[in-house]
């Protein structure tokens, strides 16, 4: 579904290189976790896949279902079925969740050949999805993220994901700042949404969400590269030993001029 090939990315404003040759394959039906220390480039990778304009791809490619998406605007990527849950969801006072999501849903529906929903149909549809993240129906009427607690914002992201039914979801530190109950709720939502036809990439600092969402693959990102790929056990090892042993490995790999 997603193929990232030798992706090099720098910050457009000052040219700082953040991603230095990332390779990643994600297939339909898979859950991946990308872990790594602060500043390793995990969040940047999510934003680049979603199309954030602050970053410039200087080399490599991102293929979604076999086609390069580098030239596509963020909304065009969303229309293809790419979704990103934000680490810091934006507050939009004055626009209700319901209105934003119905507009978003119907825009995507037109592109993905789903039936568009009128306000009543949409409300029914959204109510079902609210249950996945254990949210009160009044969330639909509230302004997008305005005055939401940190946990509510994260749940709202998963709710949006459920409503927009993406093929590929990048969840950028959706687990951070959640207490254990909220974490379970969010994880439960992710589990119910993921199926054979879609893929989820969890970008996270911590191993603990992986107790509730079973990843097929765990990647460690260090200094703008995927330093190691493994299974769930890798996450456990990272939790115990930290990232230092990998930092050294990356350094030696770079000397040999190889990627991954």
């Amino acid at each position, binding site marked *: 579904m997603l193929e990232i090939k030798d992706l090099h990315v720098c910050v457009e404003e000052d040219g700082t290189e953040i991603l230095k040759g990332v390779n990643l394959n994600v297939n339909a039906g898979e859950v991946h976790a990308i872990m790594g220390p602060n500043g390793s480039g995990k969040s940047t990778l999510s934003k680049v896949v979603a199309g954030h304009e602050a970053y410039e791809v200087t080399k490599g490619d991102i293929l979604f279902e076999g086609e390069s998406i580098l030239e596509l605007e963020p909304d065009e990527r969303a229309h293809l079925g790419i979704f990103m849950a934000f680490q810091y969801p*934006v507050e939009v006072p004055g626009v209700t969740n319901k209105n*934003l999501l119905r507009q*978003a849903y119907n825009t995507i529906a037109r592109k993905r050949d789903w039936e568009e929903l009128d306000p009543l149909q949409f409300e029914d549809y959204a109510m079902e999805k609210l249950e996945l993240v254990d949210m009160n129906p009044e969330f639909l009427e509230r302004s997008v993220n305005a005055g939401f607690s940190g946990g509510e914002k994260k749940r709202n992201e998963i709710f949006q994901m459920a409503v927009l039914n993406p093929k590929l979801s990048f969840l950028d530190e959706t687990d951070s700042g959640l207490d254990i109950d909220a974490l379970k709720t969010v994880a439960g939502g992710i589990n119910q949404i993921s199926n054979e036809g879609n893929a989820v990439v969890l970008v996270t600092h911590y191993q603990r969400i992986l107790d509730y969402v079973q990843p097929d693959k765990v990647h460690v990102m260090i200094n703008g590269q995927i330093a190691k790929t493994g299974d769930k056990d890798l996450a456990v090892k990272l939790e115990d030993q930290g990232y230092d042993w990998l930092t050294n490995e990356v350094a030696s790999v770079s000397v040999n001029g190889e990627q991954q």
Partner: protein
Amino acid sequence: MAKVKQQKDRTFLQDLLDFQGSLNGKSELLDEIRLKGAEGVKNTHFPRPKDEDWRFISLRDLYSDSFVLASDLEVEAPDLSDHYLPESEGARLVFINGAYSEQHSATDALSEDIVIGNIAQLAAEDNALLKEHLNQYADFEDDVFTSFNSAFLKDGAFIYIPKGKKVEAPVHLLFVQTDADRNYFSTSRSVIVADEGSEVTIVEDHIGLGNNKYFNLPVIELNLEQEAFVKHTKMQRESREAIHIARTGAYVAKHSNYESYTITRGAKLSRNEPRISQRDEEVQFTVDGLVLIDGDQVSDTHSVMDHRFPVADSHQLHKCVINDKAHSVFNGKIFVRRDAQKIDSFQENRNLLLSRKGLVNTKPQLEIFADDVVCTHGATVGQLEPDEVFYLKSRGLDEQQARELLVYAFALETIENITVDSVQKLLVDEVHKFTEKQLDSEIAV
């Protein structure tokens, strides 16, 4: 033909005085106010660039041209039906270039105990209520424009809502300025009196039909008696070459509630001066504003919330969206007089700059002489956040939808409380049109 022209004060005043006399002789009441107005103009001066209250804007456009009186123009009756509000059928007064238009007005939906009509007409009939209330509530001290308006006093709306009367239909005051081949001066004075326990909604609507230059100087006075509730929406959509200088004076009595929303979209230069004065204890008032300007528009709001007695709950949210080289000025004064305790006053001016060349001057100003008060005030100037746009685009909205939604969201807060559906819809459309237009021009994020 009278010319209104500023040349070191002298010509402006001379022309005014020359003309002022010709209006007299039909009503003693009006003659007296005009005379006082003309004297008031003589005793002060038109704003100079160094005057503190005028230092951010230039009146060059007003002074550099001459203006004929609107009454010197020949005007064909325009078709205004597109501008009527469905909720106000039979509750509408129309003024064309400041002159009352009987053929466009209709007040048959309002019950007979409500006094509503044109000031000149009511003055000719020696109406006692008019005499009691006219020129009582626009006490803008030493203000040359209020005096100027008085000196030309003739037409305008007078509305008196009797005790306990709750008027269902919003009253539409439609002030239309026509296209013309000459610059003209247009003025009107309106008075709204809500007696004890009455309720009424007023939609003050200024529309320019062409793209021509004119100077419009409307003054509106309001008096809210005990427990009266008045909702006042002012929409200003003058011609893009027009100068709109307006005064709104409101007095609020015990347990009354005055809610006003002023929307500024038109005019090359506009200046609003709302002044709300407490006449007794325990009042509520709201003086919210929304300004949407682009091109070379200048919009200036100088407001006064005058807390003279204990216990008031006052609110002012003034929001501006500025694009291109437009310039927004806000000066909001909050007075809390001595012994006016238990005042809870909120004031905020928020500005959204869509371009690099837009300009904002903002000055919230508190003068508090009581000690048991809660006054919050603040001002912000910001831009559309790229991260907000990205967030919405990542949800599938395109650039235009995302920007529209964000500007709409910014603006909505000031218009969502407007209860006349067609007005709210019209304003939402205006916001959308404004935003769409911005996408055609260069946008700086």
